């Protein structure tokens, strides 16, 4: 059970941050144009 909780929680946290990185990188690149 511990393994399941760890893998689901870690995936959700990383996916959350990946959407934020997507926005931050995009805005940075758009600003540089």
């Amino acid at each position: 059970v511990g393994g399941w909780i760890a893998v689901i929680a870690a995936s959700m946290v990383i996916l959350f941050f990946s959407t934020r990185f997507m926005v931050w990188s995009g805005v940075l690149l758009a600003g540089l144009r």
Partner: protein
Amino acid sequence: LIRAPLSTTSVLDESAAVVRATVSPWAALLLATSIPYRFMQIVFADRLIELGSKATQYGDVLRTTADITCAAFLLSLVGRAIYARACRLASESGAAPGREALRVPLTAFAGYVFVASIAEAATYLLFVTGLGIAFGAVLSGLAIGTIELNTEPGIRGPLRRLAHFGGSSRIVASLALVFFCAFIVALLNVATLISGIFALASTVGGWDAARWHVLLSIHNRRYVLTIIAGALLVIEPFWIAANVLLVRKAGAAQTGDDLRVWFEELQRS
């Protein structure tokens, strides 16, 4: 079905045969699940280009688009997991796999979602450096290649396997280089195909295809983004098959399975 020792050429050669065996319906399923993700990436990039330096004032719109892209990404992972399993079954039997390809173990999928998320986050985090796409592509390739080795839920196992198979760095790097070239070729092919279709359509009476030239020109950013997404969709089945075979062949070389198969073939002949 270990036909040749581990090398870039053997991996590419066998992956072409595997894609041929899995093209219907599994490659079609992969495309169907990947299209929403690529479409949302186009929408996101298009909005960014449209907003330009004012993008900082439209955080909510961009965040919502990124969230929908993330949901589409999860759907694309389902398609990739099924396709990777179909590739493994096809490489084992040499024939087109049946419904068994759909039975992806939940532990394998959970481990794959975890490492694919890391690859996705690394891509966007390093995007501004220019290395993000290459690094993310290699990482996501190894993630899909090692999917079926995740037999227990957890976060250490998938990472350990990623590091282990990433050790074949020479072949991994050369595969990435070959697929970069394949992407350029696919880009030209997709653009030519679309132009060809409309050139043919313009010969049909009553079909006014002339105005489409404005839309289908490289000055239209949406057209350029669509062509890029189309090229990525075209090479995706080959990329997944190559990584599945790379991991399979590297694993066979380490356990000595390739030698066992070769010895059995010798005995039979």
